[in-house]
């Protein structure tokens, strides 16, 4: 590009020499054209060189006149012609360089802000930012470090690949917030480069990246040879903008992460609410059904007793049915009341006392064995004295729920084993285990098994009745006693519920 203005200068000099008008030729004013042209194309150096060349080539034309006539207005004009193109080229070039540098800095700032708008991961955006900074500073190498210290900071360098020493100049800038400038890194006593000086100086510059929170990183740039005049100011400006942009990007990313987490939580909560809503609906339906069944029986048998004069045996049979259904209704209402207490946070009305497990379990086992002839029940106890410190009714409800659950989810019949033993992992506690060989519980369902209104769907247990409250009530009652309930299960193999309650030695 500079060759064309040079050529034009040559043509002008030749034209002036050939016309024979010497330094008076009007063509001399045209020297400004290539000088300004070169200045616009290549800045101050191009403009100065081209203008200087014009002056140099014009000297053999202008100087003889000065030597012959001395200093006159005409010869002074000739002397001015020697200087003017060079000065004009320098001035225009200087202005062009200045505006280009300013425009370059502004463009770089905009580009940096666009790259660090938080839409992309910081790592990849920083690589582009480092390249933008390198081009703007016209540096050989540029590194950006984002972080609090040199070892944990995120490092991006262009070109890629560099070793990092924990005591390096950039680390110093990160730690102290002070800039480092070196006119020759290989000859700088502060830098133990381990390399001898080269014919061309190796310049270096670091700047801290600051934000409202203090130093958030560092910018480092290296040049071989001359550092462009505007590079230092540009480095200062870019460091400020990169620091702020990095902080903004981090805040944006944090905000996005927070928003995503919030959205996930809201979605999960919404799904849970939907689930609960669905469960409530199902619950209402089941409750209606569960209440209607004994009520229908009560209604039917009581009407039969009122309207018909039944023989005593038959009337007694009806009364037994009425009593059984009333008990069922009472149990359902009791469960609902317990649930209501638990949900409203009211304490359960418990009256703990020593309870003989043998008697309680034998009675329940007999009861369930009589009702469910497809199942076999086995009760064993290794607990000393086979007694716990619990509310008798609550314990009875817990045992019944667990046995009922075991029967309900063993639709093909099978063995239900109940055992009591001292809790191995908790001295003073008694472990009551109810084990069945039924359909079992899938692993993903286990965490929800003690939630309210949860009823496991299984093709073989669709006819099983229940409110989905039994296990949640057992859990609440166990915890109210200072104990706990756990479950182990394998689908197709059965389940083992482990109810841990205080023994006679411990109080709750």
């Amino acid at each position: 590009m500079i060759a064309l203005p040079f050529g034009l200068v040559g043509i002008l000099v030749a034209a002036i020499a050939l016309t024979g008008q010497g330094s008076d030729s009007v063509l001399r004013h045209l020297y400004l054209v290539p000088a300004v042209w070169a200045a616009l194309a290549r800045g101050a150096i191009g403009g100065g060189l081209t203008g200087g060349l014009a002056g140099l080539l014009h000297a053999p034309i202008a100087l003889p006149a000065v030597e012959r006539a001395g200093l006159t207005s005409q010869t002074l004009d000739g002397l001015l012609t020697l200087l003017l193109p060079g000065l004009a080229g320098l001035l225009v070039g200087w202005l062009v360089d200045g505006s280009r540098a300013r425009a370059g800095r502004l463009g770089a700032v905009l580009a940096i802000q666009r790259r660090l708008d938080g839409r992309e991961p910081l790592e990849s955006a920083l690589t582009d930012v480092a390249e933008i900074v390198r081009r703007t500073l016209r540096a050989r190498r540029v590194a950006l470090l984002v972080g609090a210290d040199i070892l944990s900071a995120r490092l991006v360098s262009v070109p890629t690949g560099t070793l990092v020493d924990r005591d390096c100049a950039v680390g110093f800038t990160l730690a102290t917030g002070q800039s480092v400038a070196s006119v020759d890194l290989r000859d700088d006593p502060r830098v133990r480069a381990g390399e001898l000086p080269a014919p061309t100086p190796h310049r270096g510059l670091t700047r801290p990246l600051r934000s409202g929170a203090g130093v958030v990183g560092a910018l480092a740039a290296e040049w071989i040879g001359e550092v462009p005049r505007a590079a230092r100011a540009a480095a200062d400006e870019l460091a400020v903008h990169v620091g702020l942009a990095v902080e903004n990007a981090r805040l944006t990313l944090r905000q996005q992460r927070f928003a995503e987490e919030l959205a996930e939580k809201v979605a999960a909560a919404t799904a849970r609410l939907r689930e609960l809503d669905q469960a409530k609906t199902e619950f209402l339906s089941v409750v209606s059904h569960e209440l209607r069944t004994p009520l229908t029986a009560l209604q039917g048998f009581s009407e039969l007793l009122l309207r018909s004069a039944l023989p005593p045996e038959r009337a007694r049979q009806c009364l037994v049915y009425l009593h059984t259904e009333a008990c069922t209704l009472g149990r359902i209402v009791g469960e609902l009341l317990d649930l209501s207490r638990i949900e409203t946070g009211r304490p359960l009305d418990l009256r703990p006392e020593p309870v003989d497990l043998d008697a309680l379990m034998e009675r329940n086992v007999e009861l369930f064995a009589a009702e469910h002839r497809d199942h076999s029940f086995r009760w064993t106890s290794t607990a000393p004295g086979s007694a716990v410190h619990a509310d008798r009714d609550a314990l009875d409800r817990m045992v019944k729920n667990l046995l009922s659950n075991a029967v309900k989810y063993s639709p093909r019949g099978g063995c239900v084993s109940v055992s009591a033993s001292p809790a191995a992992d908790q001295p003073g506690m008694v472990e009551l285990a109810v084990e069945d060989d039924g359909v079992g519980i899938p692993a993903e369902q286990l965490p929800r098994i003690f939630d309210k209104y949860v009823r496991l769907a299984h093709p073989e247990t669709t006819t099983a009745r229940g409110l989905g409250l039994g296990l949640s009530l057992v859990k609440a009652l166990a915890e109210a006693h200072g104990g706990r309930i756990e479950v182990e299960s394998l689908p197709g193999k059965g389940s083992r519920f482990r109810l841990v309650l205080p023994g006679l030695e411990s109080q709750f």
Partner: protein
Amino acid sequence: MLLLSAPFDAAAVRPPRALVGGCGQVLLVVGPVAALGVALEGVDPAWGGLGHALAAGSLQAGLLAIGWLVATGAGRGWRAPVSRLGITTVGATLIARLGQWGPLAFVLIPLMLIREARGRVAIGAVGFCGARPIHALTGTVAGGFIGAHLLVTASLTLGYHVHVSSLTVYLGALAYDVGANVLSAEWLFRGALFTAVWRRSAFWPAATATTALAILRYLLDPALPTAAEARAGAVFYLGLVGLTACALRAWSGSLLPGYLAGLAFFAAYRMLTP
């Protein structure tokens, strides 16, 4: 990237260099020898040529020695190479007076400098190394252009003649430029001093300062014509050659292009006759 890979100690300072002491020792040797030469030149016309050669040779040796000291930081063991270089320079200058082919002895000086510089990294770091052909060609063309411009301007303006009266004398002067004049200027001003200043500042301050010193060295040379226009021309052209050599040194990383530019310029200059 040294800013990341090299350990940094903000409190470290440059160890003191024995530069001033070394330069003082060089001047202590060069001064009396040059004075002896000047004295010989003034006392006896028969010994005049020898005295002039002694004075000129010792001064060139002094420039080369100071360049060596600046380039190496006057590190340990500088006296032996500097002494050998100085003896070679003075010897070559004296031999040059002995006969028609005597100036060929000037070639010994760059050869000795190359021999002494071999294996010394600090000398290579000031640009005393080879250059790519394009850099060397550019230097030769630039120096030739400035020299040609000098010939045209001087002949048109001051009426100087461009001709070589004696090829032997012309080649002898060229040999002096090759081995002493241009060599010492490049070695000291563009090599040692420019490099030292450039390492501590930007290009233009370094180039301006070292070119000014180079011009001063020529202005103090009694061989330069005393006419005002000749001195103004000398300042202009030496400044131009100096700045060009600095630019070539910075561009190529080598002293060779600037050295060739200087040789090309002086090859033209030696053709001028008032």
